[in-house]
């Protein structure tokens, strides 16, 4: 047994210089393995780094957005929106469209002889509205003399607000049927993500105003009853 003790001591004396680097190597190996491998610590670090960067970018976007928002003249923008809503209303305005057609007829000297809705004659039952509740289409009949007067009538019609689209024209024997579509679009919810950049509206209102220059809007949105025209075609 004493021989064994001597042999072990000799072995230790011979290799003890390796113990320190091996020990350090093992510590590094194990701790690195834990950091990079099993504990996801490294992955978590990189993910957190990405998250912080994304948040910083979002903060920058929010600051930029807020700076623009605080500069906005809300009253002016509401007025601009009002002009646009006048051109394309937020709700279907049957009386408004009727009034436009009647006014166009008056301006062109063409008497309106009647108006029909797509679901039947003006004044049809309420259930007829469901047949075509989204579109606002009316066919108006006018008494005219010649193609020049037809041109005047259509010119006046197409220069009125709210905007309308002429879909069909049938002129024959001193009478013209004009099928028009009243344009409307609801004011839906358009606000998206909180950091979504604001739309570029600078100059937008002026551009629209230029496009609508020369257009005439009715002072009061109300139908004028003349002849067989009734206020609600549905």
């Amino acid at each position: 047994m004493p021989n064994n003790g001597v042999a072990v001591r000799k072995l230790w004396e011979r290799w003890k210089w390796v113990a320190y680097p091996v020990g350090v190597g093992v510590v590094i190996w194990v701790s690195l393995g834990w950091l990079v491998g099993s504990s996801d610590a490294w992955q978590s670090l990189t993910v957190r780094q990405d998250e912080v960067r994304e948040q910083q970018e979002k903060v920058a976007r929010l600051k930029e957005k807020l700076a623009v928002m605080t500069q906005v003249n809300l009253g002016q923008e509401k007025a601009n929106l009002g002009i646009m809503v006048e051109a394309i209303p937020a709700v279907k305005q049957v009386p408004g469209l009727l009034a436009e057609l009647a006014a166009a007829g008056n301006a062109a000297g063409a008497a309106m002889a009647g108006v029909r809705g797509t679901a039947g004659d003006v004044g049809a039952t309420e259930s007829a509205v469901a047949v075509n509740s989204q579109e606002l289409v009316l066919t108006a009949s006018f008494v005219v003399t010649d193609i020049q007067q037809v041109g005047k009538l259509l010119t006046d019609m197409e220069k009125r607000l709210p905007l309308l689209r002429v879909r069909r024209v049938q002129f024959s024997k001193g009478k013209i049927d004009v099928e028009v579509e009243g344009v409307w679009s609801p004011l839906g919810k358009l606000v998206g993500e909180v950091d979504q950049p604001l739309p570029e509206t600078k100059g937008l209102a002026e551009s629209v105003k230029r496009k609508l220059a020369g257009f005439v809007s009715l002072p009061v949105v109300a139908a004028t009853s003349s002849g067989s025209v009734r206020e609600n075609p549905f």
Partner: protein
Amino acid sequence: MAGGVNLLPTKEQKQVVSEKIDGIVRMVTTGVLVSYIVVLAGVAGWWLFLASREKAVSTEMAGLELDVKKLADVEAVLRQEENRAKLITGVLGSRIETATVAGKLASVPGNLAVEAWSWQVGAGQTVGVVASSAGEIEQYAEGLKTVFPAVEIAVMRKINQVWEGTIDAK
């Protein structure tokens, strides 16, 4: 054999070399260990920095979001404005101005009057005229070609001494 040179290293010499190697190994190992600890400390520091930064940015972001939400009516108006401007531009850009079409018809040279006119969006138009001869109708059709690119006489017939013509134009 007496007086020969012994070239084998002595035990002391071996001991010196061994201690020298041992010292180098210790120094290198210590250097690696210290470097590793420094790197590890750096990573830990970076971790702590990110954690504190994340908290700060998160707090700032929450405050900004609240401020933006307070001005939601401003955003709503601007978005509605943009949307409606697009709609207006779309309608004005896409609709066919029938007044222009009717104006072109009225400007066609000749003495013939347009008796009938049928136009439908996407389907072209048909013009009806009445004349005293077929030649007049053909002449009118030629006149139509000056304002419309595609003109074709669809029907031409004589009824009770009067010529009627139906002309398709696009």
